[in-house]
């Protein structure tokens, strides 16, 4: 009998459930979006990690992957999309541009880092990061959610 009953608190179960069923938001900005598509494509197949359903509406999704350069014209729109997402919500900043402006940091119309627009949970380095790196970021985020280290 004891093999079939799992005793846990509701809080723990919720964290576990949130972490293992992240629904990402179909939101591609630039070059990194292509690597994001590769990660969801056949070879890397990140559905293995429980976040297979890319949702097209911010209302349905919990994970925003900012994949690419954030321009000044786009930044307020990103904020609006983030505000439209329902709690709990998480942000992965993918690549050098989204994290810190990347090669375009000297430009006149580029925001140096998406963390000036929305709060970021995990940063991924690389220009662009390989799909493996994005999957590592997803695993990191999941581990932190399950361990309760993410405040939302």
């Amino acid at each position, binding site marked *: 009998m004891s093999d079939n009953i799992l005793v846990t608190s509701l809080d723990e179960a919720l964290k576990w459930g949130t972490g293992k069923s992240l629904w990402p938001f179909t939101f591609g900005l630039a070059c990194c979006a292509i690597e994001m598509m590769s990660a969801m494509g056949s070879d890397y197949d990140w559905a293995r990690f429980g976040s297979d359903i890319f949702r097209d509406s911010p209302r349905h999704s919990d994970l925003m992957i900012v994949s690419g350069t954030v321009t000044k014209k786009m930044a307020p729109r990103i904020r609006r999309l983030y505000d439209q997402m329902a709690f709990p919500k998480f942000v992965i900043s993918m690549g050098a541009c989204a994290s810190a402006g990347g090669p375009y940091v000297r430009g006149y*119309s580029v925001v140096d880092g998406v963390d000036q627009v929305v709060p970021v949970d995990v940063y991924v380095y690389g220009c662009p990061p390989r799909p493996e790196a994005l999957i590592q970021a997803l695993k990191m985020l999941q581990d932190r959610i399950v361990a309760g280290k993410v405040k939302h």
Partner: protein
Amino acid sequence: MIPVESESSTKNGMKVVYVAKENIFQYLKERKEEGFDTLLMISGVDYRDHLEVMYHLLSSSSGSRLIVKTKTNDEVDSVTSLWKGADWHERETWDLVGIKFKNHPNLKRILLAEGWNGHPLRKDYPMDKKQYVNLGDDGEDIVSYEKTEGY
């Protein structure tokens, strides 16, 4: 026949002609009738003391190419009535280089937010003076120099 001010060529042998800015519309119209039916792009160059507009023409049947240039200080005639594609190219040239096009139907900024100060591809554009963009209630962009008012 519209006279050509001077003629030269690029390093790979493309013909470059300079035309006075008063005649540019008429000159391009003649070239279009001659067979240069594709306008590849319009671009602006800031030479500090004057501005230049470049028109890259291509004849889709013979494959010959022609670059037409004109010197100006502020504005030239629009060629949107000859090529519909000129619309966006002229808006971009206005946006980034700051050359006005007379008789353009909708000369607004295209790449930068409406209300942006200055034209970035000018050589004297202040790159250290940052501008910030935010959304207004009607969904249009608001540009300001204050960091607190935008991203």
